[in-house]
């Protein structure tokens, strides 16, 4: 595979620059809110949206949402700058920039939304835009498959999430998130707490790729590298984590919450870090480390202590910084050498010094070496794990193992390709252009800066975030490089030893893991089979229902009508039927006889024209009933429609051969009798109960004074209910055009 950076690094003109500028402006805007948030205040913006349902376009900026917003817009700016070079001259760059910007804005909406419905709208928008981004290389089948898989998994979770949000709104009586949190622990004692929790977690676990729903995330690496850096490190996958954090004050503290999040988080963290070491593809390895981070974040959200919350806020920031920068570095390596396989990389440190420095800074933070922010994050993790009341050993053990494995992976991804071995023959790597190393360098350096001056981060972001999570200032724990000689420090040292050991033996370990994991079932292997079965089922049931026989369609329709009416009648109890025939006149009887005669003739004839005419007689009989009961408008319409139907059917049918001799079909006869009987019964039931005349009286009273018309039927059609009529005529046009298209298609087919 030929490598190399784009010959022209001038990017994609205005379509390349514009999104970068937009993202940078957003970042600056959010940064200007920092002082307010650091003073532990919040900013609100509320615009009425659907007032009748109490749904508002409500946005809230507090510590938690501002932290996310800054990460999203900041990393977004750098990633867009990077993409402009990474995909320079790509024919569909405008599309790419549009998707990525749209994704960024949806994600910002998601973290700023203070209304459940608004939250859901942005949630789904991120799902859709990420689908477009993962499937951006749509010529590749694999890319399309993996994009669809991500869409299905997160989309299915999204449905559960919606159900959970609706239940939540019903249980609390408000869609405002601040309102729900303000209700305190009322939700936890609510009878619907468990269903709400399960449904919401189904959404957040699929979105944040917790085991066993994790399989879509590594597959989503089919996306271009900048997309992976943005979506799968800092933003989209953290949407689920964000929602759990947002709901933390209202929902945490119960046993179910604690154990579900702890177990899923811990299993995901350990499982993912083992899988990460197994990968030989740099991007895949990073994808699994992202899973590990998501598991760890979930694990912390399960707890309630201030340590756990401070650890959550810190690790969230640490991870976003180093992971985005490592993904971008891998993109540079990929373009420079044409491969991402660890075995085929080496000696890049001298040729790509700036990239190598960025990688080293990020990796040191990831591995948790002092004085990087990653070290503080790790110390807090251990402190948080030890503060877990229930199972400190289990949680700390999981954290220790996963951290040690992280260190090993950091070595494999960011150390080995640069400082071990030599450049294999056939590769001619070169340093990345500045647009591509700027992002990794800035992000990785921030990890070092914040590590040395943790107070910056503490005051501006971590403390406000912890306050959003716990509601108490006292719960905020200090971010310190040197916290004294304590258990977290011992655990840190143990991590370094274990981690370096893992790194030294990673090739052997990989082999072992390879053998172990092939035995474990994975939902991804069954995915294609599942989709095939689903398609097979769809085909089977379509052939069953849409079998192309008009008689079977009609049979099904009428069976449903008869069953529906009869069951309703039986269920609600038959009303007293008192049929009074005293006011039936001879004209009623004769119309009825005419109609019945028409129906009988249609049944027995085997001449098509006689059949059509007989059906016409039935229609005209019904029109006459309307005339007798003084509904001239309906009668005229009925007559005209009947005439046109006879003409239309005659046009079609007269060219067909005459009908086969009418034979007796028992099931058709039974169905006809059943439909007739049920419709008659329901009519009699309707007539025998007193009619509600309120509507009639209203229209009679208002038709002339308000709508200046005496023909009430027409006034209703064109004035009182004009919107309904508009809908109906739109349907008429659509039906006519569709039928026209169908007729034309078959004719063309015949000509071929």
């Amino acid at each position: 595979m030929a490598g190399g950076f784009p010959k022209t690094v001038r990017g994609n003109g205005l379509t390349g620059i514009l999104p970068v500028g937009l993202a940078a402006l957003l970042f600056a805007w959010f940064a200007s809110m920092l002082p307010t948030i650091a003073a532990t205040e919040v900013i609100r913006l509320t615009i009425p949206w659907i007032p009748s349902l109490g749904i508002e376009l409500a946005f809230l900026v507090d510590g938690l949402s501002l932290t996310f917003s800054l990460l999203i817009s900041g990393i977004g700016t750098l990633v867009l700058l990077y993409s402009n070079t990474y995909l320079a001259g790509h024919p569909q760059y405008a599309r790419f920039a549009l998707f990525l910007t749209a994704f960024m804005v949806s994600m910002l909406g998601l973290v700023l939304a203070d209304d459940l419905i608004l939250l859901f709208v942005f949630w789904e928008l991120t799902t859709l835009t990420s689908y477009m981004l993962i499937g951006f290389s749509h010529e590749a089948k694999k890319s399309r498959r993996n994009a669809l898989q991500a869409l299905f998994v997160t989309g299915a979770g999204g449905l559960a999430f919606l159900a959970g949000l609706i239940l939540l709104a019903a249980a609390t009586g408000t869609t405002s998130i601040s309102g729900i949190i303000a209700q305190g622990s009322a939700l936890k004692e609510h009878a619907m707490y468990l269903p709400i929790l399960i449904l919401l977690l189904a959404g957040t676990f699929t979105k944040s790729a917790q085991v066993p729903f994790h399989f879509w995330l590594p597959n989503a690496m089919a996306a271009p590298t900048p997309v992976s850096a943005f979506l799968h490190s800092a933003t989209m996958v953290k949407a689920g984590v964000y929602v759990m954090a947002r709901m933390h004050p209202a929902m945490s503290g119960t046993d179910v919450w604690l154990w579900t999040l702890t177990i899923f988080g811990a299993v995901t963290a350990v499982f993912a870090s083992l899988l990460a070491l197994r990968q030989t593809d740099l991007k895949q390895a990073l994808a699994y480390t992202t899973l590990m981070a998501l598991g760890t974040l979930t694990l912390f959200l399960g707890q309630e202590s201030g340590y756990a919350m401070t650890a959550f806020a810190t690790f969230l920031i640490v991870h976003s910084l180093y992971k985005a920068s490592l993904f971008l570095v891998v993109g540079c390596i990929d373009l420079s050498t044409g491969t991402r396989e660890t075995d085929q990389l080496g000696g890049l440190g001298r040729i790509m010094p700036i990239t190598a420095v960025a990688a080293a800074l990020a990796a040191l933070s990831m591995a948790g070496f002092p004085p990087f922010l990653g070290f503080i994050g790790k110390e807090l993790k251990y402190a948080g794990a030890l503060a877990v009341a229930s199972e400190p050993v289990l949680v700390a053990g999981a954290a220790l193992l996963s951290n040690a494995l992280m260190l090993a992976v950091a070595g494999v991804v960011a150390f080995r390709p640069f400082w071990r071995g030599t450049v294999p023959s056939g590769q001619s790597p070169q340093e990345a252009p500045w647009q591509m190393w700027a992002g990794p360098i800035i992000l990785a350096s921030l990890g070092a800066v914040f590590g040395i001056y943790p107070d910056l981060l503490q005051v501006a972001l971590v403390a406000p975030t912890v306050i959003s999570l716990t509601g108490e200032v006292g719960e905020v724990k200090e971010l310190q490089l040197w916290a004294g000689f304590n258990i977290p420090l011992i655990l840190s040292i143990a991590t370094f030893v274990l981690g370096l050991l893992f790194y030294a033996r990673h090739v052997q370990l990989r082999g072992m893991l390879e053998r172990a994991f092939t035995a474990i079932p994975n939902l991804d292997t069954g995915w294609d089979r599942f989709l095939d079965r689903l398609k097979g089922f769809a085909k089977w049931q379509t052939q069953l229902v849409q079998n192309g026989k008009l008689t079977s369609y009609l049979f099904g329709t009428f069976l449903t009508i008869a069953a529906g009416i009869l069951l309703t009648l039986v269920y609600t109890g038959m009303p007293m039927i008192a049929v009074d025939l005293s006011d039936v006149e001879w004209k009623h009887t004769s119309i009825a006889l005419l109609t019945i005669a028409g129906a009988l003739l249609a049944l027995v004839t085997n001449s098509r024209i006689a059949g059509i005419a007989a059906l016409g007689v039935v229609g005209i009989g019904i029109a006459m009933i309307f005339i007798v009961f003084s509904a001239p408008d309906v009668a005229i319409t009925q007559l005209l429609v009947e005439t046109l139907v006879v003409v239309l059917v005659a046009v079609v049918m007269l060219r067909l051969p005459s009908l086969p001799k009418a034979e007796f079909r028992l099931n058709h006869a039974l169905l006809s009798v059943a439909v007739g009987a049920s419709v008659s019964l329901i009519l009699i039931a309707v007539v025998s109960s007193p009619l509600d005349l309120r509507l009639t009286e209203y229209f009679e009273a208002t038709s002339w004074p308000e709508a200046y018309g005496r023909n009430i039927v027409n006034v209703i059609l064109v004035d009182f209910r004009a919107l309904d009529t508009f809908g109906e005529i739109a349907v008429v046009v659509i039906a006519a055009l569709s039928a026209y298209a169908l007729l034309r298609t078959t004719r063309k087919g015949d000509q071929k």
Partner: protein
Amino acid sequence: MNSVILRVGTRYLAGLLLVFSFYMMLRGHNEPGGGFIGGLTGATGFVLYAIACGTQDARAALRVMPQTIAIWGLGIALAAGLFAALFGDALFTGQWLFIGATEDDKGLPLSSVLVFDIGVYLVVFGSILTLVFAMEEEI
């Protein structure tokens, strides 16, 4: 269908039906009738014409494609409904103008409701002819 009597008769009948359909539509607000019935009546005229003289001639007589008529009708009905927004009313609220109105006589009433009804007329007329012509040509 090759029948001289039908063809000659249709010449007159079709014209009469069209005039009558327009009459039905206009009187619809106070007497039985309206855009729906008018559209059906008018379509009957052209259906008859198509049966007697063939769809080729009927299309030529109509000059415009029936689909176009239906879509214009839908557009006119929508415009009549949106018109109310100009006056700050809810969509599809009837707007009335009484030309030459005095104390006793309300003069010549003109309304967006009538425009809406004309839209309905054109939709029904155009849609039915779209279907009938296509089916006639198909067979």
